[in-house]
Each structure stands twice: as structure tokens, then as C-alpha cells.
């Protein structure tokens, strides 16, 4: 048995999926280049007002109470992807029949998912969860299910052998389904097909054939003499007797959602409302395919800025050197490492190493991109929204927003084996949100875990993303060997510059102007211990280190002194504590 999922009036359905509040209003979709935009599709409310496809946009605008939306190929692509996701959640064998139609092979699914009516109702529910109003029809062959879905609204189950009877009352127009592909990409071939379909339909109308029952009853020989093989094919379809195999496709793992705004947004709060909607749609689609995500890419199209501003001509992809300067190598909320989804940019972009945001200025469009990289695959729309909000608060777009595009990189869900005796560990989702909030307080580069670098240079370390790895994986590294206490050093950042009194080249007293308590006479000293390095680099260093016991006003303190051999200055680097 085969199920067909059909989305009626697909372009309008794609818009309603992105903006559900428009369902109760009269809506018309237009396309084309101004000033020659024409109405492309209308919903029932607009049709009742007399708006028809082919009207100019100017004519449609004369109707009060009509909502106009430009055709968005990205929204239609997202709706089509959601349709395939819905189909794939019921069977691995799915045919991408048309942009508004998906066919599902239900062979063997009854033992898993229930009876055919239950499966059909389940498909209807999942599609509704994904924001699509669909017709679902189940029949013994793919073409019969397609006709039933196109002609009958809601959920339909056609019993085997009763196809002709079930489809008989449908109008012949259902055999010539409207195709919603982009006219420019379809080209002349689609035009010829449309003309041929119109000719056949007109012929059938002239013969008084208005429904499939009448077409099925025509004599085959006479029909083939007048309409040829195409006529016979249509008759087989009308009888529900056409048989063909499904051509299954692997639905591409592309999870993108977009929304174009009627008015630019200037505040982050309404932006968060729209982001929440897009995130919920993406998460629902990922969940239907049992996937999580580890990367979210947000691209905001900004309102055109008048005049060229050199300060804004920036291209903020961070270089490797930026990451080496004590920035985390893979920030939870950080920089995009790839070009944004949208295509060509103007040639006047210039790189910068300062700005963390990606902000493209061209003659025609501004784009602002942020990438949210997660340490582990997750699927929590509320968490993603909070992380994006924190990031946008820290890196605001700087201009009103006219379009929002969100893409998620799919990943397999993480699996972790729980245990009764495992040490406590933070929940990954909670931890990610906590780290983002901490980063908003102290700075992104000032929170994380340590990584020592292979160098003897002072401050030879870098911060990296803190990940609470699964206890089993990290347990293997842990050692139960007891160690004796190691005397620790507390550093002054930056090191404190001091004035040192020397005797025979050895410090005997010091004074620090910045920190009054760091002054006194040296009771004991060890050193100097000489270190140097990177002499082949621009940032060569050479220093002498001393460990001293300093008699201060109150007590004796152990310090590490550093004498910079290249600059000549003396510093207190830290305290032994």
C-alpha cells in the first residue's frame, strides 16, 4: 500500500507555515520583478474577494483587507523539506513526486505503526506539527493515492479493488495537477506540458467528460484513436488501475528555515519571537528524523544603509591568529568559520581582524551572520533561543532586520550510558546555557578550560571550550595515585613593575608603586634562573627569574621576581602561596 501526502495550494501553505497568524486572513502571493509583479497564488479568503492569479500587484493592492506576501523560494524549500521529513518519519522508502507531493511505501509498516487508517491519521498529525495542512490518502498503487489526495481533503483510505469507485466522483482537472515549480527554472518544457494539458482538458470538457467515472467508462480504442497514448494513460489513472514502482529518494539532510519580514525589526524582543518559531520548526523536523544538531547558523539580512561607511565595510571571519590570542578555539557562541548561506556578495568587502560579527556591506544587501556551535549534539529549542539571545545581546546586528534565515547542521544524537556510581557531572544543556551567561558577564575568552602550550614562554597557555565529557570516557584517564602537595604560584596579571635595589647584581630591596604592600627588604633569594626563547620570532624573550623572601610590613612573603633582559625592567610575576 502507498500513502500520498499532498499539500494543497503549496505556495500559500509555505507562507502559512512561516506565519501561522495569516491563516485567518485573505492572503495573496505575488512574484516577479517590480513594477511587473503579478499575483501568483491566493487562498480562499482572497479568492472570495475576487483576487485571481495573474492580476497585477497594483490591482491587488486596491483591495483592503488583503495581505500580500512576496513569493519566497526559501520558505517553499523549507516547506518541501518538512514534507519529506514527515514522510520519512513513517517509512524509509519515500518518493519526492512533486514539490507539494510525497509518496510513502507502507509495505511492512502496519506491524510497526498500526492499521492503515491509524498510519494515515498519524501522518496527518505529524504534518500538522510541522506546520503543514495536508491531505493524506492511502491506496494500493501510487497514482491512485496521488489522485485521492489531490481530490479529497483530509484523510482517505481507498480499499484495494475499490479505486475506481472511490475516485469516480473526482473532477477530471485532478488529473492535470498544477505544478508550482519556478517557471524560470522549468523552462520551455513545462510550458509545452501545460499547453498539452490544457488541450486535453478542453477536449474532455467538449466531450462532456467532467469526472473520472465518465472518463473511465469511455471505450479504450476510440479514446486512443482520438487522444493517443496519453488518453489511455489518463483513463488508466481514472480507473485507479495504473501501476508503477516508486522511485525512492534519500531526502537531503538540509534543515533551514527563513522568514521575510513585512516591516524591519529594530528590537531584539520581536526578533526572539520569530527565532523561537523558526527554531521550533527546525527542531520538529530534526526530531522527525531522529537527529540532533551541533551547529546553528543565523543569517540576518539588514536594512540597506545609505552611504558608504568605511567603518562598516568589514568582513569579520576570524583568522587563526585571532584564535591564538587567548580566544577559545571553538566557542559555544562564537564566530562562523564558513561563508553564510546566501550567495554572491559585492566585491567591495574587505577583511578585518577586529570585529567578531560577520557584517557584509554591499551595494545591495547587508548580511549579519552568527554561528552557534555546541559541544555536544542537542535538540532543545528553548535552549537554542536563549543562547542566540545572549549572543545577539553581546553582538547586536546594528541595523534593522528585514529577513531571518536559520540553518541547523544535523548530527546523530549523543548516547550516554548512565550509572549509579558515577561522579556528578553538569547536564550538557544547562551547562551550555550557564557558560553562555558567564561569557556574557566576563567575556567569551575568559571562561573555559586550560590548555598548556608547548612553550616555555610566560603565559604559555590558551583557553578552550569547556566540555563536560561523559564520565566513562574521562574515567580512563584519571589516576588514583596520591601526590604530595605542590607549592603553587599566584600570578599578577599583568606583572607588577617594581624598582629594585641591587647589590652585586642581586636584589636586596624593592618597591612597587602600584601595590603598596609589595615592598621591603629581601631576606632570602635564589637565582637567577635564566630563560629565553623564540629568538627566531619577532616576539623573542629573555629573562632572569629570582625566588625571594620579602620582609613586608606585616609578614614574610615569597615572590618570584623577573628581570626582563631585553627591556631591562624588573617585575614581580607572582606570589608563592
Amino acid at each position, binding site marked *: 500500500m502507498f500513502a500520498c501526502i499532498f499539500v494543497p495550494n503549496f505556495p500559500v501553505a509555505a507562507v502559512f507555515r512561516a506565519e501561522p497568524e495569516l491563516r485567518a486572513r485573505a492572503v495573496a502571493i505575488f512574484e516577479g520583478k517590480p513594477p511587473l509583479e503579478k499575483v501568483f497564488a491566493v487562498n480562499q479568503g482572497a479568492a472570495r474577494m475576487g483576487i485571481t492569479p495573474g492580476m497585477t500587484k497594483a490591482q491587488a493592492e486596491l483591495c483592503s483587507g488583503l495581505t500580500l506576501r512576496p513569493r519566497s523560494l526559501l520558505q517553499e524549500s523549507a516547506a518541501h523539506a518538512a514534507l519529506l521529513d514527515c514522510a520519512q518519519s513513517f517509512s524509509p522508502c519515500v518518493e519526492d513526486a512533486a514539490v507539494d507531493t510525497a509518496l510513502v511505501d507502507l509495505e511492512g509498516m502496519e506491524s510497526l505503526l498500526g492499521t492503515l487508517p491509524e498510519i494515515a491519521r498519524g501522518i496527518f498529525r505529524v504534518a500538522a506539527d510541522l506546520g503543514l495542512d495536508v491531505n493524506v490518502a492511502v491506496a494500493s498503487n501510487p497514482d491512485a493515492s496521488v489522485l485521492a489526495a489531490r481530490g479529497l481533503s483530509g484523510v482517505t483510505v481507498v480499499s484495494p479493488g475499490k479505486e475506481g469507485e472511490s475516485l469516480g466522483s473526482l473532477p477530471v482537472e485532478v488529473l492535470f495537477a498544477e505544478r508550482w515549480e519556478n517557471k524560470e527554472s522549468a523552462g520551455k518544457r513545462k510550458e509545452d506540458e501545460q499547453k498539452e494539458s490544457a488541450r486535453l482538458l478542453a477536449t474532455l470538457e467538449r466531450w462532456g467528460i467532467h469526472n473520472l467515472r465518465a472518463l473511465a467508462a469511455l471505450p479504450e480504442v476510440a479514446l486512443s484513436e482520438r487522444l493517443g497514448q496519453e488518453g489511455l494513460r489518463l483513463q488508466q489513472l481514472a480507473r485507479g488501475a495504473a501501476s508503477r514502482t516508486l522511485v525512492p529518494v534519500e531526502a537531503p539532510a538540509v534543515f533551514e528555515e527563513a522568514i521575510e519580514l513585512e516591516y524591519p525589526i529594530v528590537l531584539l524582543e520581536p526578533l526572539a519571537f520569530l527565532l523561537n518559531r523558526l527554531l521550533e520548526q527546525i527542531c520538529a523536523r530534526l526530531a522527525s528524523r531522529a537527529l540532533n544538531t551541533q551547529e546553528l547558523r543565523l543569517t540576518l539580512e539588514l536594512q540597506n544603509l545609505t552611504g558608504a561607511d568605511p567603518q562598516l565595510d568589514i568582513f569579520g571571519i576570524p583568522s587563526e591568529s585571532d584564535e591564538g590570542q587567548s580566544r577559545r578555539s571553538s566557542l559555544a557562541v562564537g564566530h562562523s568559520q564558513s561563508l553564510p548561506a546566501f550567495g554572491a556578495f559585492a566585491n567591495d568587502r574587505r577583511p578585518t581582524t577586529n570585529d567578531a560579527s560577520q557584517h557584509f556591506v554591499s551595494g545591495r544587501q547587508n548580511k549579519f551572520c552568527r554561528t552557534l556551535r555546541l559541544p555536544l549534539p542537542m535538540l532543545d529549542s528553548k535552549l537554542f533561543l536563549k543562547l542566540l539571545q545572549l549572543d545577539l545581546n553581546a553582538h547586536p546586528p546594528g541595523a534593522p532586520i528585514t529577513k531571518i534565515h536559520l540553518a541547523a547542521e544535523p548530527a546523530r544524537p549523543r548516547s550516554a550510558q548512565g550509572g549509579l556510581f558515577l561522579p*556528578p*557531572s*553538569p547536564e550538557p544543556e544547562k*551547562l551550555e546555557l550557564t557558560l553562555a551567561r558567564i561569557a556574557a558577564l566576563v567575556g567569551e575568552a575568559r571562561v573555559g578550560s586550560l590548555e598548556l602550550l608547548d612553550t616555555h614562554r610566560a603565559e604559555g597557555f590558551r583557553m578552550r571550550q569547556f566540555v*563536560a565529557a561523559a564520565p566513562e570516557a*574521562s574515567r580512563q584517564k584519571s589516576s588514583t595515585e*596520591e601526590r604530595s602537595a605542590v*607549592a*603553587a604560584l599566584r600570578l599578577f596579571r599583568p606583572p607588577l613593575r617594581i624598582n629594585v635595589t641591587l647589590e652585586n647584581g642581586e636584589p636586596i630591596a624593592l618597591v612597587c608603586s602600584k601595590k603598596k604592600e609589595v615592598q621591603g627588604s629581601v631576606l632570602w633569594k635564589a637565582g637567577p634562573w635564566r630563560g629565553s626563547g623564540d629568538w627566531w620570532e619577532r616576539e623573542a624573550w629573555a629573562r632572569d627569574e629570582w625566588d625571594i623572601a620579602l620582609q613586608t610590613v606585616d609578614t*614574610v612573603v615569597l615572590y618570584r621576581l623577573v628581570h626582563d633582559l631585553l627591556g631591562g625592567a624588573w617585575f614581580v610575576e607572582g606570589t608563592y602561596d
Partner: protein
Amino acid sequence: MVSSGIAEMDALTGGLPRGCLTEICGPASSGRTTLLLAALAAATRRGEFCAVVDASDALDPQSVAAAGVELDRLLWVRCGEESHHAEHRLEQLLRVADLLLESGGFGLIALDLADLPTQTARRIPLTTWFRFRRAVEHTPTVLLAVERQSIAGSCSSLLIKLGLRKLSASENRVSELQEDSQIAPTHAQLLTGLEITAELVRSRLERKPVRSAEITFTSKTAWAG
């Protein structure tokens, strides 16, 4: 109770209590950071995740690694930038501490206030310490506060006071630090360790009243072997 990483300290206090606030106080060079890193090393060896909220950005990565802390399990939060005043750093520390305690899942959270001026640290209201204590109650988290003087009052369940007794050098054992105690040349001297005294000032974990007890433990420098 969990091990502090130093056997003598465990014998003195019984270890560090989970679900309670412990204060470690003392002047500079009294071994506070040594004890902190030993506790972090013990916790990470147990497989727990730890966090250090560093008010003065004073943590030395080399010392952390030498102490045996597993770096992957340590979250380091560096409060304030160079130009920020102590009050700003303190405010950041308190807000970060709130976030970490709310998040949960850490075996040990350390608030490093050791380099903050005492008058600044004393500005933390007792209600804040009380809130921190309530946040860790009935959790497996050890909350440590490292400071110059005790500032949490009765909110801390354990109060340890540290002091420097003497330092050890390779060529010259100095028992009394005097101006003429340098016997060997400086280049022949090597700081090999510190002898730390620890006093258990207060413990609310035992029913019987605690008499002030004192122990001494030795810490070695990383190069002493």
C-alpha cells in the same frame, strides 16, 4: 566528606564536607592556593568536574598542571579585565557563583578571593553567603572560599586558617628568616618547598565543641622532585 588532597589536612578536618561552605584563609604565602590546587586535583582524580571563579585572575596554569589537576575537568572563570576595579571583579564573582551553583553538577566550586582587599571582600553581605550555602545544601558540591580573612561568618561549616612556618631550600635549610641567613650563593639556592601550618578554627560538622587544632604539612615546588 571528601579528601582535600593533603593527608595531614584530612587528618585535621576529616576532609572537605560536601554540601557545605568551607573557608580557607590566611595571608599571602600561607599555602592557600596550594591547598586549593590539592583539593582540585583530588576532585578531578575522582572524576568530578570543578570550577574556579578567580576574582583576581591569578591562577597559574603551570602550577595547576603540576598539582595534578586534570585540566579538561576544570572550568576557569577569570573575572574582570586589567582596568577593572576590585568592586567590579567582586560583583562578577558573585554573579558567576550564582550561575554555577544554579547549574549544578560540579564536584567542587572554588571562589578565589585571596587577592581582593579585605575591606572589599567584607562587602559581601551575609545574606549572599547564606544563599550560597543554601544552594549547595543537599548537593554533592564542595563550596570553597579562599580569602585573606574569614568573611562568611556562621555561614561556613568549616574554617581553616593557614600560615607560613618556614621555607625549604636545597642548600640552606632556613629555620629563622633573618637578613644574614643567606649562607650559600644565590645561584646555588633552590626553593624546594614551604612548610605550612593549618589551624582548624571552626567546624560545625561535629557535635562536640572543637578545640583549635593545628597541624603542619609540607608542600614541594614542582621542580623539587
